[in-house]
């Protein structure tokens, strides 16, 4: 049991280490800087959205609309390039993400509804808007040279996108562990009622959690559109699932109250390096699916097996506890 709990605490490190070792054994030259840099760049898009989702999950909420916001923000940033120039258009694109997040947050807090259902609905809405605006056709940007510059690798490892991801996740780590608002997020996620009683403005934290998540999805979408010089209404349709998997592999729980930025970093890197390793071996996509699904299930089962002794096994996410009906008999 002791071994298991130790293994569980450091499972992200262990799984990442295992992935890297196995990859190095089967893929020649895996540990070269350029390969690692590649893995990092592949992970960056998922990673940027995962940063936002980490905060939301810790606060006991979820956001399914990230992929749609990703597409919408990218489209706006490309369409506006001709009108207002590349940089302003990019900023507007990111702000579209912010606004989308604010809409999610306002609806969840204002209507007191479950964020799973609500963001399922806004996912439909944002995705429809993306199709509506573009008439379901991809739109192209004005400057392909910028795309090439953005994809340039520095120091053999970092692209602008992956560097941004690393910097932001370190900042998030500091914020979550060293500041009072950061710690309050955990309080809100683990016990909203208690958090409220101790004077934490949980509604505000939840609202800004959504704003933060939307902004990052917007940022990731704008970067994607700049790198490909294209905005498309079908971008990001597979992203949400990958992002949730990466965050959960990193040890953040959907029930709220637990998680870490560094864990997410580990989870994102695991998914990224695993993808690269399997692609280098021409492993078919469906086998990749099975492998990542197994890792996900294995990790959460291990987590449960070690840490749930005291807790009821049917714990539901904290996001629902605002509702008076479920609060009925618990106190």
């Amino acid at each position: 049991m002791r071994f298991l709990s130790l293994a569980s605490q450091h499972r992200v490190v262990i799984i990442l280490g295992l992935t890297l070792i196995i990859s190095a054994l089967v893929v020649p030259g895996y540990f070269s800087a350029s390969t690692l840099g590649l893995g990092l760049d592949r992970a960056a898009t998922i990673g940027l959205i995962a940063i936002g989702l980490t905060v939301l999950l810790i606060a006991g909420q979820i956001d399914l609309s990230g992929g749609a916001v990703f597409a919408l923000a990218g489209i706006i940033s490309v369409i506006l390039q001709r009108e207002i120039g590349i940089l302003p258009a990019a900023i507007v694109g990111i702000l579209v993400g912010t606004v989308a997040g604010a809409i999610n947050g306002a609806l969840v807090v204002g209507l007191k509804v479950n964020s799973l259902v609500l963001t399922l609905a806004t996912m439909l809405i944002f995705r429809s808007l993306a199709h509506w605006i573009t008439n379901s056709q991809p739109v192209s940007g004005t400057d392909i040279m910028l795309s090439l510059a953005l994809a340039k690798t520095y120091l053999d490892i970092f692209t602008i996108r992956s560097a941004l991801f690393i910097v932001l996740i370190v900042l998030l780590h500091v914020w979550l562990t060293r500041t009072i608002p950061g710690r309050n997020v955990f309080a809100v996620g683990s016990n909203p009622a208690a958090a409220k009683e101790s004077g934490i403005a949980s509604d505000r934290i939840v609202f800004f959690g959504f704003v933060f998540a939307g902004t990052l999805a917007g940022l990731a979408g704008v970067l994607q559109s700049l790198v490909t010089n294209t905005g498309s209404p079908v971008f990001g349709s597979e992203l949400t699932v990958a992002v949730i998997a990466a965050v959960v592999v990193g040890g953040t729980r959907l029930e709220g109250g637990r998680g870490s930025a560094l864990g997410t970093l580990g989870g994102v890197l695991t998914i990224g390096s695993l993808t690269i390793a399997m692609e280098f071996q021409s492993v078919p996509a469906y086998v990749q699916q099975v492998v990542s699904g197994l890792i996900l299930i294995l990790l959460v089962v291990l987590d449960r097996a070690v840490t749930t002794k005291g807790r009821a096994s049917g714990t539901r996410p904290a996001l629902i506890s605002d509702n008076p009906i479920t609060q009925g008999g618990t106190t």
Partner: protein
Amino acid sequence: MSDAAMEISVNPDRFTRGSKLVDALSKAGLAFAILAVVLYGSVVSPAFFTSGNLLNVLTSMSIVGIVVVGMTFVLVVGGLADLSVPATIACGAILSLGLQPMIGPLPAFVLAVGLAGLIGLLNGVLVGYVGINPIIATLGIGTIGLGIVQAAVGGVIVYGSNPASAEFAKGRLFGIPVVVLIFLVIALIGHFVLSRSFWGRWTLATGGNYSAAEASAVPVQAVKAGAFVITALTAGISGGLLGLTLQSARPLIGAGYEFSAITAVVVGGVSIIGGFGSVPRAIAGLIFVQLLTNVMVLDGVRTPIQGFVLGILIVGAVGMDAALRKRGVA
């Protein structure tokens, strides 16, 4: 066992406090919404209020409707959602066609549904007994299941080889399409189980207040797991019928059905928090969504706008539900 069920049934207020008025209001709201769509549809399109069109809507909604019955159990038991539905539908459709030449149509269908149920059992064990969040468990199992199905089929379209079973699935009985009849039968069974049986009471109790139900000796873990098995079985049946009516199946045949089913259940006012809801409500939600989509297509509304309207609708439905409920308690 039956003692526990009794105890809960005599004390339902504990789980659904103050919800009588809310219930009536939201039921009236849904009925009003359906009526509004019917009126609007009749005005904009002369073809809308015809028996042919309404029967079409009913036929079109039957496949997803069968899944809706199962999904209702998942939401009521507090299991959030089952995202593995595309995998279980694919399993049902591909096996019920692919095994036909070997073991005949009926055994193939039964085996397909049974295997889908097994996937549901995996979900159920992970959620009910291990205590994993349903979103993650069903996402993971669904991904694995779909991966295996794709590996097994290898990109080949599986065609049906038994015309008689196709004739049956596409046929009519007393003028009503067979799929509609199967849907109605499953809906009736689902309704009976959820509202009249001990299993239903346990499901409601587990979803309403997990620890209280556990204290009252409800086998909460089994009840929770059961909801996922039920959903997988319904999805398996749905997939099998889909395969038989289309006479062809691909691995991605079930894509999107999980969200359609959840949408219908939620619009029907079944709370995703659990502890509250019924099969008729979920089906009323489905009818509303399907009629609205039908009216939009008849009215020539473009596909993206349809998605937009549907999204707004869900927000409206959950928002109204939450608002009513708060007032009901206050």
